[in-house]
């Protein structure tokens, strides 16, 4: 996966990214150890691709997103956006980078400043980056509002007057306001009702097609990710354990964790139900991860080797990558 930096198509390249949080205690805040929230993650996203990052809570998927946009400090590794070295970029380059990369957050209630009108929320970044002002700014904001399915009349309303789904539309409008190349969506639908979820997913899909956007889509719901993404990477305890095209991943998962994750999702249609292989036990604490393969204490196929040696990611053909000593084969 490394060394593809010269590939013209690749818009975001994450190489061996590690984000560790120190655990401090005591009067003098001594560092006792590290929580390896993101532990050696590498992936790359092509122009126009929708890349899904899926995993259970605490697996580090959101931290990946935040590190990529430098809201968290990377402990190690590189992030390349086009040709920009994001981790070491200076202030000016970061400004330019922020213009081209925007975020949509999970919680539609906390992600909008309650004291600002919709017009200000969407318009402020446009003004800051000196893209438009005055009448032109207003036109632009109204236009974006219309594109995300909201009436431009809402421009002078405050966030508390909107429902969750509408707020998420405002978040999306804000993310689109700068005409970004890459949009990172961190669980954009998980806080919404089922019927609203579908609206937002459709909207994101339409916008992606319309602007030829590149998306990094983070979610815990495999069904949503599978519907939405071209390529899916499955994370477990800070590591990517499997990555493949969405269709391939569903039909032929190699990693036992992927298999378990998919079988655990309750299905309405009995014909789509898979044989349930629920992993035993709890997700181990990320502050104290197991030795060897992180999944081995819960894995039904685990052997002695799994508890000793950390499996490396290996390519199994067609961009299907898996980190498992004994990948499933059907």
């Amino acid at each position, binding site marked *: 996966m490394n060394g593809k930096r010269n590939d013209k198509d690749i818009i975001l390249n994450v190489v061996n990214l590690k984000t560790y949080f120190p655990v401090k205690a005591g009067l003098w805040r001594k560092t006792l150890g590290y929580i390896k929230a993101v532990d050696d993650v590498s992936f790359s996203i092509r122009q126009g691709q929708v890349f899904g990052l899926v995993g*259970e809570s605490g697996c580090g998927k959101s931290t990946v997103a935040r590190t990529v946009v430098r809201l968290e400090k990377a402990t190690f590794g590189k992030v390349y956006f086009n040709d920009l070295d994001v981790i070491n970029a200076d202030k000016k380059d970061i400004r330019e980078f922020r213009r081209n990369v925007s975020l949509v957050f999970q919680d539609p209630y906390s992600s909008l400043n309650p004291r600002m009108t919709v017009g200000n929320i969407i318009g402020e970044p446009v003004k800051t980056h000196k893209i438009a002002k005055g009448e032109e700014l207003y036109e632009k904001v109204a236009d974006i509002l219309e594109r995300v399915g909201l009436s431009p009349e809402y421009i002078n309303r405050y966030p508390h007057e909107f*429902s969750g789904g509408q707020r998420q539309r405002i978040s999306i409008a804000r993310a689109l306001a700068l005409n970004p190349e890459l949009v990172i969506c961190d669980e954009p639908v998980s806080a919404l*009702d089922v019927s609203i979820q*579908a609206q937002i997913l459709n909207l994101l899909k339409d916008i992606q097609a319309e602007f030829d956007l590149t998306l990094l889509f983070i979610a815990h719901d495999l069904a949503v990710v*599978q519907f*939405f993404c071209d390529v899916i990477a499955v994370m477990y305890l800070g590591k990517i354990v499997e990555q493949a095209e969405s269709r391939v991943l*569903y039909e032929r998962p190699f990693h036992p964790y992927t298999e378990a*994750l998919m079988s655990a999702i*309750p*299905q309405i249609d009995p014909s789509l139900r898979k044989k349930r292989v629920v992993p035993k036990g709890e997700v181990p604490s990320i502050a104290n991860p197991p030795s060897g393969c992180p999944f081995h204490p819960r894995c039904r196929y685990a052997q002695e080797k799994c508890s000793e040696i950390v499996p490396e990611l290996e390519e199994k053909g067609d961009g299907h990558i898996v980190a498992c000593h004994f990948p499933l084969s059907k």
Partner: protein
Amino acid sequence: MTDLLKIEGLNTQFHTEAGIVKAVQDVSFSVKKGKTFALVGESGCGKSVTALSVMRLIPDPPGKVVGGRIFLNGSNLLELNEKEMRKVRGNRIAMIFQEPMTSLNPVYTIGDQIVEAIRLHQKKDPESSWREAVEVLRRVGISDPERRVYEYPYQMSGGMRQRVMIAMGISCEPELLIADEPTTALDVTIQAQILDLLDELKERNRMSVLMITHNLGIVAERADDVAVMYASRIAEMADSQTLFMNPLHPYTRGLLESLPKLGEQVDRLAAIPGNVPNPLNFPSGCKFHPRCPICEEDPRCLEIEPLLEEKEPGHYAACWKV
């Protein structure tokens, strides 16, 4: 099959400064002995208020059960006084909540809390209650319960806490367990474990379960009977297989179609347009008509609220167009 819980014409309202919120309107259903009944719907549809009404835990004021009857084994819970009701709660009906992080008291050990629940309803000495607490924890699949009883809630993960909540709930072997979104806050793999546990306990104790959830997948897999709620009313009700194979109400159909399904390749989801209506300002007539694909400006839909009718044997729907 006999009904354990029978609800007839339940109406619950909240008096707010902005007006009267009719949170539950004319809801009737029954939970059979040893079966799981699922109440499914989106946020604010009244499913949780229904559950709290059964427990008589509606905060009053502003809330009040203004009509209907709730029979548990033939006796009307709404006629009991508070003292009698306290004996019902925890003893015959137990309830577990969505947030396992906040529904346990952080300052007491797990053991203390379970023992308290046991001693409240069964006259037992402390020592045997403590032994029973260990036993109950073992039954809900917590390993090493002898040690775990001394732990505090913050030392446990979300899944573990939900197991503890279930342990407290079943410690007095209730006839009915109300589970209000029991797995919404949990990861999918843990969710499957908890649901398996609930199924197993239901079998063993011949307990009935009233499951409140928004997740249709869980309902399809775990429930025997289902009622779909929309805007304070039941929109459709049937046994689970019938409802999912042959949904009648356009809302049920819309919900089913709008879900992305694992393993199914589609370009777009069939989303239901519009927003969930505000309970202070419900649309006239059928509350679903502004979002309904089959209403087609039918004057009946626009003006008269349809009632739940038996459209097919055992299959009820509230819609003019079916």
